[in-house]
């Protein structure tokens, strides 16, 4: 999956990929104070290429939980399940439905997206990416966006969560790279000096098929040096 970190202070963005085997679950957000966690499980192409470089991976399942109130939301491209304790409620992506309960609001927009808000100050959006049913290579997959996170605590961590806190970086020495359309540069971040490449990713919040181009500095090697520790540190055994 592709990760895009927008840095409004610099009016710029940083991006990286995490390449892991299908089935791997990654911790995206964990906040011990609010009790919110978001994990994502990776799926691969239909063909399941053994060559990890050629393989494309996506998020096929997302688990959003608030441990303080024992509520969980499991999202797949097929269905959406909300758990309150042990009691599930199941919805399809063909529903347009709004659910409200104490401190949680979920809106599913038929075949497009779902907006999950935990009170004021934490809002996530999950985008449904549908591929042509007879597409030989790819599965339907999910996109995950944090549109509001100011109520998350300073202890929030995870592949995305660690970037909720202000952080600084510097990019300099922009020079031609191996691809003439994508210059390389040096990034100084978290006391690491990294070689990054100018590229672009897409923000699909407004339109799940076309998307909006977001220019970003791409950090190679699974975000190594940008993320705290190694990307394997974020692998967790289960969605919840």
């Amino acid at each position, binding site marked *: 999956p592709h990760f895009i970190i927008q840095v409004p202070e610099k009016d710029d963005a940083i991006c990286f990929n995490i390449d892991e085997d299908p089935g791997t679950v990654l911790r995206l957000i964990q906040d011990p104070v609010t009790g919110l966690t978001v994990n994502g499980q990776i799926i691969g192409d239909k063909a399941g290429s053994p060559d990890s470089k050629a393989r494309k991976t996506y998020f096929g399942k997302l688990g959003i939980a608030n441990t303080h109130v024992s509520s969980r939301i499991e999202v797949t491209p097929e269905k959406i399940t909300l758990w*309150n304790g042990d*009691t599930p*409620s199941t*919805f399809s992506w*063909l*529903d347009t439905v709004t*659910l409200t309960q104490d401190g949680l609001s979920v809106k599913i927009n038929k075949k497009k997206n779902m907006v999950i808000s935990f009170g004021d100050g934490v809002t996530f959006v999950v985008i449904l990416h549908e591929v042509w049913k007879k597409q030989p290579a790819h599965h339907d997959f999910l996109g995950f966006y944090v549109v509001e996170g100011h109520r998350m605590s300073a202890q929030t961590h995870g592949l995305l969560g660690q970037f909720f806190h202000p952080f600084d970086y510097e990019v300099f020495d922009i020079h031609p790279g191996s691809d003439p359309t994508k210059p390389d540069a040096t990034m100084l971040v978290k006391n690491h000096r990294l070689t990054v490449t100018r590229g672009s990713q897409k923000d699909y919040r407004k339109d799940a098929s076309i998307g909006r181009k977001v220019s970003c500095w791409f950090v190679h090697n699974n975000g190594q040096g940008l993320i705290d520790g190694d990307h394997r540190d974020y692998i967790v055994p289960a969605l919840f």
Partner: protein
Amino acid sequence: LPEGVVNGIEVYSTKVSCKVTSRFAHNVVTTRAVNRADTAKEVSFDVELPKTAFITNFTLTIDGVTYPGNVKEKEVAKKQYEKAVSQGKTAGLVKASGRKLEKFTVSVNVAAGSKVTFELTYEELLKRHKGKYEMYLKVKPKQLIKHFEVITCCCSPANPAGWESRVQSHTLELGGAALIEISIFLPQGRVSFKPSLDQQRSCPNCTDSLLDGDFTITYDVNRESPGNVQVINGYFVHFFAPQGLPVVPKNVVFVIDISGSMQGRKMQQTKDALLRILQDVKEDDYLNFILFSSDVTTWKESLVQATPQNIQLAKEFVKNIKVEGATNINDALLRGIEMLKKAREEHLIPERSTSIVIMLTDGDANTGESRPEKIQENVKKAIDGEFPLYNLGFGKYLNYNFLDSMALENNGFARRIYEDSDADLQLQGFYEEVARPLMTGVEVEYPHNDIQDLTQNTYQHFYDGSEIVVAGQLVDKDMSHFKADVKGHGALNDLTFTEDVDLEEMEKARKEQDYIFGNYIERLWAYLTIEQLLDKRKNSHGEEKENLTAQALELSLKYHFVTPLTSMVVTKPEDNDDQTAIADKPGDDPSASSVVPVMAYQVSYQPPQVTYVDGD
């Protein structure tokens, strides 16, 4: 005599043709017969149709001359009917027949060598119970029929999302599977039953028919989305049945009649049913029993949670119920209602839970407050719209209209429990229907300025396996889209389901589906509106009742429905109105068939003068 001729009459064709579109069934039963005898003979036409159906047409064709049925206001029809009865020369009529059916019977004398064709049309909205729709036909021809055929077709307009109906399952219990062809071409399902003469024979050389059975088709629609709106010619219908929601915990008070008349099998069956119901009660639920005879006694002072221990105690209690005394419905119901209200006020039951009163009685109130209208008034005032009341009327000797009316005005319904070997299963079956509320306080909302003549759009409960159906008209037929919201409270959260209806896209899809009847949705709307007006009418008085009657009558006449307000009259004008066939709706009184003047159902027919040559 040719095969299939009995007493000179050959019934050479009977065809039952059923078409279900959007749960609205259109059924046509056609029988053709010829009198092979050399004198005039009587030919009978019997059809058993569901009580919930409305007859819409009947025609009698004798030697090529068709005598159509006319739907008239009951009073107008009655005048013709009474005149004919007084002359001893009428009529065809409909009688209640068993639990689910009404029997339409017409007899006509047919001249030697003459042919007669009977054609009866009736329509019905199939309602979803326990996750399925059921189309039911009674098949019992009186003699062998050369061309006997039942064809049913379930289809539905595909909507733009392309997910609508498909037949998922069939249950057929008739004469052996070899006689039945089932073909499913999604989204249509077709079932054909066409036994040959030999297949109909009860034995190789017999002339009587072995066909005597129930032809039942059960199906459900493929439901990927909880709602579906269909619009045709400015009328719309909105089906809503969400799945995957957790069950809302319920607080049930069973108000059980233990008066002397319940003695014996009725009490035993009641106990058996309650014991089985107790096995199915969920631990989240709360319950209590209120027993009434001359006095009212309760199992516990207040509602108790259905823990395993309490369920065990409840079973012991039920096993030891004894019958005694008279029937005090008023005090028992008021006690149950008060108990539920108190439990809510004192927070003894979960905040997100729903309350239900289920009363079972086998007779009329005869002690305490025994005036039905006063009991109704007291109960309505006590419940005050907070929860539904369901009344189960056990056996024949009770005022069912009172139970029905009281349940309807308290957002529930009444159900007759037939005194039979399966009464316990009927009781349990009823409980299962209301045991799984998935939403409460359901309200279906449309934009006020765009929609008119809506059928009922608020429901106290949505039960798992049922379906909410709302129909209405668009103010502007040319509008391009509208939005429908279904709001309600679930077990865990408040829910709003939204349907965005794109009329242009729907019209495009509709044009591609040539099997849809053009006015189907309009007739469904009319059926539902009449049905609901008649229900409302049961609890209205004075001017309001007159208005409701007038509206229901106007629609019944406009859409040619035989409802409790109308009759269908078939006359032969050239015979000086001495042949009058009347089709009436008999209502839900099982004893009605012995009350209405059933003695007058034979048509006297003067055979026309025919010059006729026969080879022999």
